[in-house]
């Protein structure tokens, strides 16, 4: 980053980072690394679910007292874009990223990505019986045995639906989903992690739409769980980071975004168990073929997907 920006940022002294990244392992180490690199600028972490953070930003905007500088999140980008609340900014370090990891219009850059994959309990399901393709999920033996987290975000059933539609096309996709709905998928009213834990605990043998890195973490601890690189492609969601329009500390915000996307930042995220946006830091074994749900795609279709969920799976 150029010195002018650093100076301006140092003058601002702090940056308010609204983030749903895991605190202990990602957010605080990242903030600490930034603070070490740029002494004099402190990172104020405002943590929460992306939904909660969006509510807050919404109210701040409505009251005209924006507090957030930098925000992180996937599903929120479309909403904020619609509200014209994002300041376009392309950090210099974004040059390291592939094209699908940054917004063509410069509104956002990817920070981390996630793979949404099915996971099964290896004690309950032998590896050879585990589903390999989308079609396998329709096997009657899975009736009532598949769970998913009933969160209405790209990371939940709507994202799965979007992927299916994207992979198979509207017509065939709908036909597939109809069949899938006859499997009586259990709506676990919690997030993906809890659903995965229930698989590990043996409550359900198989879950859809879980984060692959969660399974990786648990596997390391010895948990009887395995994720599946469902053929042809699993879902890939992008968590992006961006600068708020009218941010109270725009320069510090820019500097921080630049840091996140830089190698130093990406390394911290990789160490925390996340899958960084920069493929350089990814473990190729753990990067399946994926269908990317970009923010623009989500922005365009999320409501349709939710409607399909409401119709078929609720």
């Amino acid at each position, binding site marked *: 980053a150029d010195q002018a920006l650093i100076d301006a940022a140092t003058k601002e002294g702090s940056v*308010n980072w609204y983030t749903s990244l*895991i*605190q*202990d*392992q990602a957010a*605080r180490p990242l903030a600490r690394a930034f603070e070490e690199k740029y002494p004099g600028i402190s990172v*104020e*972490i*405002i*943590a*929460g*679910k*992306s*939904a*909660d953070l*969006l*509510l*807050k930003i*919404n*109210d*701040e905007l*409505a*009251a005209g*007292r924006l*507090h957030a500088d930098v925000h992180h999140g996937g*599903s*929120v980008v479309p*909403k904020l874009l619609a509200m014209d609340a994002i300041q376009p900014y392309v950090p210099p370090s974004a040059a390291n990223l592939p094209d699908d990891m940054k917004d063509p219009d410069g509104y956002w850059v990817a920070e981390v990505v996630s793979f949404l994959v099915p996971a099964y309990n290896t004690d309950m399901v032998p590896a050879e019986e585990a589903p390999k393709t989308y079609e396998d999920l329709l096997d009657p033996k899975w009736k009532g045995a598949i*769970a998913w987290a*009933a*969160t*209405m*975000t790209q990371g939940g059933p709507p994202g799965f639906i979007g992927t299916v539609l994207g992979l198979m096309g509207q017509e065939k996709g709908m036909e597939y989903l109809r069949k899938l709905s006859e499997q009586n998928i*259990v*709506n*676990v*009213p*919690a*997030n993906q*992690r*809890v659903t*995965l*834990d*229930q698989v*590990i*605990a*043996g*409550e*359900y043998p198989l879950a859809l739409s879980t984060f692959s890195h*969660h399974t990786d*973490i*648990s596997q390391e*601890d*010895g*948990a*009887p769980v395995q994720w599946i690189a469902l053929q042809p492609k699993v879902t890939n969601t992008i968590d992006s980071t961006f600068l708020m329009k009218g941010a109270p500390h725009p320069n510090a915000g820019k500097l921080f975004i630049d840091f996140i996307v830089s190698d130093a930042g990406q390394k911290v995220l990789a160490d925390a168990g996340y899958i960084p946006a920069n493929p350089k830091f990814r473990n190729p074994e753990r990067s399946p073929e994926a269908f990317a749900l970009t923010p623009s795609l989500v922005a365009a279709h999320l409501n349709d997907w*939710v409607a399909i969920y409401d119709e078929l799976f*609720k």
Partner: protein
Amino acid sequence: MPTVVLTVIIAVLVLPPLAMLVRTSLIDYSDGSFGLVNYRKLFAEPELYLTTINSVVFAAGATCVSLLIGACVAWIVERTNAPFRGLAYVTTIVSLGTPAILYVCGWIFLLGRAGPLNSAWRALTGSFQPLVNVYSIPGMILIEGLLWVPLVFLLCGATFKRQNADLEEAARMSGASVIATVRRVSLPLAKPALYGLAIFIFIRNLEAFDVPVLLGMPGGIKLLTSDIYLTMTRVPPDLGHASAFAVVMIAFISVLLYFYGRVSANADRFASITGKGFRPRPFDLGRFRWVGGLVVVLHFTLVLALPIIAVLWNSITPFVRAFSVKALGNLTLRNYTYVLTDSHYLHLAWNTVLAASVAATVAVALTAVAAWFAVRRWPASGGLTQLVSLPIVFPGIVLGVAMIQIALRTPFGLYGTIWLIAIAFLIRYLPYGMRYAQPAMMQIHRELEEAAGISGATQPGIFRRVVLPLAAPALIAGWLFIFLLAAKELSIAVLLAGARSKTIAVAMFDQWTNGEAGEVAALGIIWTIVMSCCAGLMHYLSRGDMKSRGTQ
């Protein structure tokens, strides 16, 4: 005049969020326009009839469970010489200190399909059908009921503690057995407390999210709130639906509170602390002492031991897994080391204790005065009870949003500070304070206050020197309850947390959503221990205080 001041204070606290609630209920979140669309949606629900019945059955059942267990145990502990009485307090305080998600998950863990009970059954019979299905209305009733047992226990305990033994002894002399005495004298005298509590818990259950959602949705049981939960988990949450529901609930509780007002209209009828021969003496259960002890132990097992064991288990296993001998091999204290070595939590703990204790103290103080005004029918105190009870219907997240909006519009830098959280806690827990304070005031015979007035005490003097000390057991119980509940309150704390005002609950939530179930459990256990120590200390101090006053 003082009534007016108090009414204004409470109104200033309660009404802005209420206004926000009503406003939110009129917003159509799909396009941001105003209208009745949320109400229309609420009533257009095709299965409204069925879900209403489900909800009412669930709420009523759970209310019965908690009242039955809580009141029973409270009576045994406060009014008899059964053994193990101290255990009930430990149970209550520790289980109140345990975060609710952990608690509910503990139960799911125990009774779920993979739980020890069902696995044992499966191993025994080979049947794939589980023995108990927690994902059913009875399961939900049981777990929701157990969740509220501590509230009932603390409140009834405080009420029973101050009952005049003479009245019960007179019943015994008339030939009534212990049971008949309880049924015909002890319980009716505690009627305002019990009715108030029943109404309160019923409403709370009716609008509960967690258990209905955590257990009902996987089981395919739809309650009134299930749908609302879904709309609230969208991005951004559609708060309109929930708010509309809350507004409807307000109408409903107003009706219930009106009837409650009629039940408790004549305070004199429930006055058991009199100025003549008042002796709070326990019953001698005789041979049935051990039955009483058994009930206390059972209470301990159900409300504390079982779920805590589940949580404890989770905190020492590297990942979530069922009880098994195999798992004993790789138990680990890693989660504890992790939590204990991070000084970050110290800061969070301090924030939590600060916000929770401020909220509890102010809430108890306000409601004690409000209850006194209301019970003694001070002029213009008519609406106080209703006003104070209003926040009971605010869904946490709605209140949180309202607080954000209010804070953003106030000139002082309230936004993002711990004080905002404390104020939100205060508003949220005012109704709980009232539940403890009101029956306590009713127990005090009017003449005790009159005698103080005659002696020259001013109204504040009477309140401070006679009413407060006599109501102290209930107020202390209320304080404990609010403190412990606020300390683990999630939705508000998460929403209102600023960079420097996070609470333990926020940290737990964060870990929870990020898959650190083991760490959450460990943190939960540590937190429970800390809270139990706090509460135990508080309890001990107040008990010593009572003793020195010679009422123990």
